[in-house]
């Protein structure tokens, strides 16, 4: 499947699909990688090492700092698949690449590809390609 890379790179991992947008600020604990927004339907999910699939970010621009911090600490998703482009998520991943050389790809998937992704399956992202393992 083809995706649109905002930040190209390669990553492999198990998919975690979020049913609602997530604000990383107040929503992701960078110490543990847990989804800690208690009003979110996937509250309690562990996001470290996964391929995170979510409609978009939400809320505070401080989410960029939180994502960069999670990447620094090794608790972040390996890659993020969005239904629509999101500057704040992209900024967090861009800054982590600039500072630490850690590449966590951010891609936008079309509706058909986005809907086909299921929590628990393993996928690999390589720039504009997304393949099921």
């Amino acid at each position, binding site marked *: 499947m083809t995706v649109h890379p905002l930040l190209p790179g390669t990553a492999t991992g198990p998919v975690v699909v979020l049913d609602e947008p997530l604000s990383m600020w107040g929503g992701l604990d960078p110490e543990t990688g847990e989804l800690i927004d208690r009003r979110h339907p996937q509250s309690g999910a562990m996001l470290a090492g996964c391929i995170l699939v979510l409609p978009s970010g939400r809320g505070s*621009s401080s989410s*960029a700092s939180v994502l960069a*911090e999670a990447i620094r600490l090794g608790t972040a998703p390996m890659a993020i698949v969005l239904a629509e482009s999101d*500057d*704040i998520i992209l900024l967090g991943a861009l800054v982590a690449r600039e500072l630490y050389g850690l590449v966590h790809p951010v891609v936008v998937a079309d509706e058909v590809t986005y809907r086909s992704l299921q929590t628990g399956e393993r996928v690999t992202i390589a720039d504009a390609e997304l393949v099921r393992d």
Partner: protein
Amino acid sequence: MLHLTDRDRALASGDLGPASAMAMRIITAIAEANGATGLIDVTSAHIDSCLYHGDAGLDFAERLAADGGRVVVPTTLNVSSLDLLHPHLFRGDTHLQERGRRLMAAYLAMGGMPTWTCAPYQAASRPALGEHIAWAESNAIVFANSVLGARTDRYGDFIDICAAITGRVPDAGLHRDEHRRARVVFRLEGISDEVLRSEILYPVVGHLVGRRTGTRVPAIVGLPTDASEDSLKALGAAAASSGGVAMFHAVGRTPEAATLEEALGGVAPEREVVIEQAMLDAARAELSTRTEGPLTAVSVGTPHFSLAEFRTLVDLMYRRRVAAGIEFYVNTSREVLAQAAAEGLILPLRAAGIEIVTDTCTYITPIMRDHDGVVMTNSGKMAYYAPGNLGVAVAFGSLGDCVASAIAGRITLDPAVWG
């Protein structure tokens, strides 16, 4: 396809040093993600990245500063984690304090002005109608776009300082006419004059509009056309918190909305919503998590208190004092504090038992002593964030309600306006 000027390319290739090269790489990546065809100049920047959210943000600022990053446009700094003028108020640990200080130092080293305020629009010099700026912090963004008619997109952590160092932003989002027109129309109908004249109308309408419109630009019809800047500040801050609103039109009041037709830019709205009193009552109730129980603190000035608000507060407190055991905080900027002090407004407030907080604010950093009871505020933004950020219960009321409650030592809501 993104078109860069020769100067943009020179910056990106490192001709002016590694800091502006990194900043330009980040700006162009965001421009490409947004499908922008070029970059434009900005005349000022307001930085929100100076609030500590972890070492990655500190590493970024210290790297830029060490690599020679310097702002090329007048750049104000948002609140930080610390009140440098009143450090005894800080109750966080020494790690947070040390990191917060280093972050502030890095942004000062890059040429940021030590304004430490979320309300840069209350400063003596501010952007004019149509001016392109790169402002971060949701309430500053919505005020600049809506009330000043200056043009900023939703900037935030990292990109704010990149814009300040390069003087460039993507030609996208709210910099462009087509994104500034209203998409949703809200009409106030059948609202009594008494409610229309009340101060809490604005944060309540803001909260409601934010919930209903999300990130789209709303036009609001039926607000008083003489609404004060403080009222519009309260409306915008609440709408930016509950819904991510970055611009609104108050028809007949804000500069790009002399008429509804102008606000809509000649395009029919996607949706019209009639706001009746029952909806205002519901939105107002949503802003409180508790209206009973012991009152422990009152916090006002989120966004930062203006000089006009200080004058009102002094009148409300005249010859009265805060009840024993109640904490009363006013958050403001150094600049406004100095103006208020020069007018003789600060001594009587301190004598009445009120603490003035500058450089930061009570809902983002550990200042409040007692978290067990209810905190009262007149701010829709504080009411929205404090339960999650601080784990406190919040009662929302007018500034008059806040003062009456602080004096009585218990939550007191004036039933005269909204029952």
